[in-house]
């Protein structure tokens, strides 16, 4: 059978699957160019460039032309702030969870200890547990802990421990680590110990062996794990919702706040930027990995 000939059924399924996946995204992106401020129906793009001119809820002319809402977005201090928070949280929690996750995977592979089966099992808990339960759990933990510590250490005023960017980062690390560990563990499966032995045989001590041989060989796994952690952190809503505090609003939280008022095309513009960012990150990483492997 000619492998290049596909049945019409397969073609149809392909179209359906891609349509289902990407149509909402295309609609979303299209609406970020909508001239209508209420954004209920698509009323054409902002076609003229020039000083801002409105006609009811319709933007007729804008200094940025079709990219009106993107410019508005750029001027929105709250959005920029939320974006900065989101990135800070994502980058920090990704780096830390990649480190912890990789070390955990290595420890689980190399050493035998009494609680090993339990440790392995416990990796799945944050993955299978409903996010809301985990969110409430973490919130309870932090508030109890902070109340106790604040009174025990006699902290008052600004010195008091409170929810904020730190607690968000910690909670993101908590749910990201298992993903990194599992991905790195998959990479470690069938990892031939003789590579490390070869390095030591050639004169490298344990540390140098890890740095020059083990880590580079695990890197594709670590990167996939980190990418997963990064995207999870970027779009996490539920857990962030419970653990953020004043000044640590992230983009998902901010968008949710906007939605409760009105849905302007600004939200779409924001989503468009976001999608482009994530797509390029995934694309870059794939390029990097295909060169590595």
């Amino acid at each position, binding site marked *: 059978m000619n492998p290049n000939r596909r049945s019409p059924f397969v073609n149809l399924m392909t179209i359906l699957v891609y349509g289902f996946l990407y149509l909402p995204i295309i609609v979303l992106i299209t609406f970020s160019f909508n001239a209508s401020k209420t954004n209920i129906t698509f009323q054409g793009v902002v076609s003229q460039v020039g000083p801002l001119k409105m006609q009811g809820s319709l933007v007729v002319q804008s200094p940025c032309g079709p990219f009106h809402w993107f410019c508005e977005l750029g001027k929105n201090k709250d959005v920029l702030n939320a974006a900065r928070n989101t990135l800070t949280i994502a980058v920090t929690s990704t780096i830390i969870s990649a480190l912890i996750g990789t070390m955990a995977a290595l420890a689980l592979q190399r050493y035998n200890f009494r609680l090993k089966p339990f440790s392995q099992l416990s990796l799945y808990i944050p993955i299978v547990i409903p996010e809301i339960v985990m969110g409430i759990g973490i919130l309870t933990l932090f508030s109890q802990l902070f109340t106790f510590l604040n009174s025990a250490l006699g902290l008052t005023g600004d010195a008091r421990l409170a929810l904020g960017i730190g607690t968000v980062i910690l909670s993101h690390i908590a749910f990201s680590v298992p993903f990194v560990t599992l991905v790195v563990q998959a990479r470690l499966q069938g990892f*031939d110990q*003789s*590579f490390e*032995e*070869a*390095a*030591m*045989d*050639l*004169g*490298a*001590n344990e540390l*140098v062996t890890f740095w*020059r*041989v083990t880590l*580079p*060989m695990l*890197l594709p796994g670590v990167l996939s794990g980190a990418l997963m952690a990064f995207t999870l952190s970027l779009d996490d809503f539920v857990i962030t919702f419970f653990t953020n505090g004043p000044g640590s609003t992230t983009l998902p939280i901010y968008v949710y706040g906007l939605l409760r008022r009105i849905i302007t095309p600004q939200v779409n513009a924001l989503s468009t930027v976001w999608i482009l960012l994530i797509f390029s990150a995934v694309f870059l990483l794939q390029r990097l990995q295909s060169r*590595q492997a």
Partner: protein
Amino acid sequence: MSEFAVELRDVVKTFATPEGGKLNAVDHVDMHIRQGEFFSMLGSSGCGKTTSLRMIAGFEWPTEGEVFIDGQPQGRKPPFQRPVNTVFQSYALFQHMTVAQNVAFGLEMDKVDVNEINRRVSEALAMVKLNGMEKRSPRQLSGGQQQRVALARALVKRPKVLLLDEPLGALDLKLRKEMQLELKALQQEVGITFVFVTHDQEEALTMSDRIAVMSRGKVLQIGAPVEIYERPNCKFVADFIGETNILTGQVRSVDGTHLKVYVPDLEAEVSAVAESQFQPGQPVHLSIRPEKIRLAEERSLNENCFAGNVIQSAYIGSDTRVKVKVGKIVLKVWEQNHISTLDPDAYFQQNEQTWATLFPENTLVLPFEEG
């Protein structure tokens, strides 16, 4: 400098088995490997060759006994502090480095300066005929080439001893034969002691100065290929190296190294020679190689001449491999085809009557072993 490059003195390595028992993978082994020697450990899979090698390299530590390298006890020294290098069966080339980086790795670890590294790396690659491949990834090399990179990577450090764990195991037969000769030539050229592990007896015979035949964690015999083949010290070694006919009998009389052994299956006495002491009445084995038995139409004057019947004959070019039923025994006999002819009568045929002569000096008395 010690006379011996490597010594294992009464070394035991015990592993816990998955069933909860204990297993001596290496069981009271003594080996004294001389400087500059091509030394092979030969034995079937699971006999403890790799474990012995890994104890020399430092990947495992002996449960009992001691490993000496160049006269120095190694104790629990890690691999990176031992003056030996290993060629792994899987080659274990670093996939994220080029060929040149792989070879340079060991020198970088020794903090050799860059110019010296470059010089020695190209020297080593030239030695294994891989110049021009420096920039390639190990993935872009054939099995034989990868094997050479692994060799260059280990040899570039100029170790006192090179350890090779079945390095030719993954190559096809033709390449394997080529590499055997090349490896042997290389060893003579660099003059480094090679400790070579293999389960292939022909390979061991071809390459080695001396061979240690191992079975179930024990060394049965150590000697030059000719000693191992011509004077095996036990039934296992005789059987394992090459092919042989084993007869079982009882010593009747002893006259120095010449013995007479009664073999019930032949209902006759067989004259044979022994390398060690035996007493009359003792049960023994006799070993005689197939190429050392003579077949003839006429009875020879020799005392060990028995009438037989050819039950199978296979022409294989250089030899004719014949099975001869003598008494209750089937003897394997290889007759060399000295004369070029198409005449079928010149070769042994099935059901032909024949006389088999087991020359006493070719018939070796070995201690009796169960099974």
